[in-house]
């Protein structure tokens, strides 16, 4: 599996879409953070404001499911699905004689690392750099750093559950366009579930899903039980979806 991981990392580093997304996110993040920090754009009601970190308000844009889904879905489409359709290079990977489960998991791990870089690390790093450069560095005290660490750590875990779902979608659709469209549709459905009244059963499912956790993890205060629950939900999603994904991939015929 180590071989497959190295190969996936090599591919990610040379993936044009990954770099385009990375630069767009970096530029967008730098701009939004700047506008928020200089108070040109006054955002309100964000979890960061409630935590007394209004300078980080622009980051809330990147935690909106529709936006990060677009980023993750696009990356999945051009990094994963294209291998099945456009270039067909998945054939070489199967022909290499590696176990399909190893191939699947290496794709999952490297795709997830790529997704975390573009959806979490780049916005967070640009925000921290700008906050320091614009003279607000003192807000990065221990308690705030711990809050940001906990919130984004848990968010990254939920994202790992989400990338598992998107990877599965990308492998099933085998088409970059379909992957992006279906992932957007999927997020819209989750958004509608969030907005509209839910029957008790659906509500119970939703509140114990990563989609609910995406916003909950930014609450300024979370009990140990809530943190544990969040970790369990993310891990369970990851494990269940990956097991399903491997089972599907093991049966999949490569065209």
């Amino acid at each position, binding site marked *: 599996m180590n071989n497959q991981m190295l190969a996936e990392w090599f591919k990610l580093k040379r993936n*044009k879409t990954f770099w385009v997304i990375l630069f767009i996110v970096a530029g967008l993040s730098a701009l939004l953070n700047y506008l928020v920090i200089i108070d040109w754009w006054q955002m309100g009601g964000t979890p960061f404001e409630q935590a007394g970190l209004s300078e980080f308000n622009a980051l809330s844009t990147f935690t909106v499911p529709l936006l990060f889904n677009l980023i993750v879905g696009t990356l999945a489409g051009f990094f994963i699905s294209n291998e099945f359709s456009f270039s067909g290079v998945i054939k070489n990977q199967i022909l290499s004689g*590696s176990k399909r489960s190893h191939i699947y998991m290496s794709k999952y791990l490297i795709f997830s690392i790529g997704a975390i870089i573009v959806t979490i690390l780049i916005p967070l790093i640009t925000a921290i750099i700008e906050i320091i450069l614009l003279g607000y560095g003192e807000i990065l005290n221990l308690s705030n750093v711990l809050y940001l660490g906990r919130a984004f750590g848990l968010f990254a875990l939920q994202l790992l559950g989400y990338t598992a779902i998107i990877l599965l979608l990308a492998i099933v659709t085998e088409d970059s366009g379909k992957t992006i469209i279906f992932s957007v549709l999927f997020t819209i459905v989750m958004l509608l579930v969030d907005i509209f009244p839910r029957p008790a059963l659906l509500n119970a499912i939703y509140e114990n899903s990563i989609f609910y956790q995406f916003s909950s993890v930014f609450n300024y205060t979370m009990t140990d039980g809530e943190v544990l629950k969040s970790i369990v939900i993310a891990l369970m999603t990851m494990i269940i979806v990956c097991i399903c994904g491997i089972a599907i991939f093991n049966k999949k015929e490569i065209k």
Partner: protein
Amino acid sequence: MSEYILRTHQLSKKYRNTLALADVNLSIKKGEIYGLIGQNGAGKSTLLRIVTGLAFPSSGSIELFGQDDSSMLSTAQKRTGAIIESPALFPNMTAYENVEVYRLQKGIPGRDGIKQTLELVGLGSTAKKKVKNFSLEMKQRLGLAIALLSDPEFLILDEPTNGLDPTGIIELRELIKKLNREKGLTILISSHILSELHQLASRYGIVHKGKILEEISAKELDEKCRQHLRIKVDQPAKGATILESTLSTPDFEVMPDGTIKLYSYLDEIRKVSKALTNSNLVIEHLSQNGDSLESYFSRIVGGDRI
């Protein structure tokens, strides 16, 4: 260790209502160049896709390097190199990077082999060129480089001459012969163009509508296709003597049923007839026989052209 590199047992593949492969039994011995011949859609690629693990059989089994257990098949596949249908390449990467990806996937230590393999297939000078700027022929060569990188013991090539010009076809044929001769590489090569495999394969499998109709060695095929006069006389031994003495030719065979196959005098059938009748032999049958390669295969597959 098994003398067979590949054996399939009653291998079948069904796609909804279409039977793509039907009870295929095929065996390839170590060191052979096995030519799989069939029309487009005959089932060649389906068979190769199953052998390489890209697809799964509906029934039957495969034995690769003596391993038939599904968990061990992937290990056996590590000893195989293949191009299936068309070379799968990253268009935005260079030739070198494409091979590097495969090197990493296979876990081949060191990068020295990349340059050597690219040079072997004639891409040494274009290693840094992006694949999107490659011609179809260069892509085929790069696909071959990828297949050869791990120094496989068994090479599977599905229609490798697609996109190659006549010179490229000859070069590929020579390379395959060289690999087989010098490295003892066992090769399974498919084509719908018979003439491409002729002079290359040591054994042929004729596949038609998902079935292997015949497996035949190159020698047997040449024998069957060799033009000859078929002579049946009342005294075969005397007939043979007459051919040797009167017509001064040793180029004939007396078959177990007494028929004589004469490989010379093909255009002088009257001269042969006269020589035999002048020696008081009764000619029961005298005709020109032997197929061309194309007509032989055409006859085997029931008149459909190959």
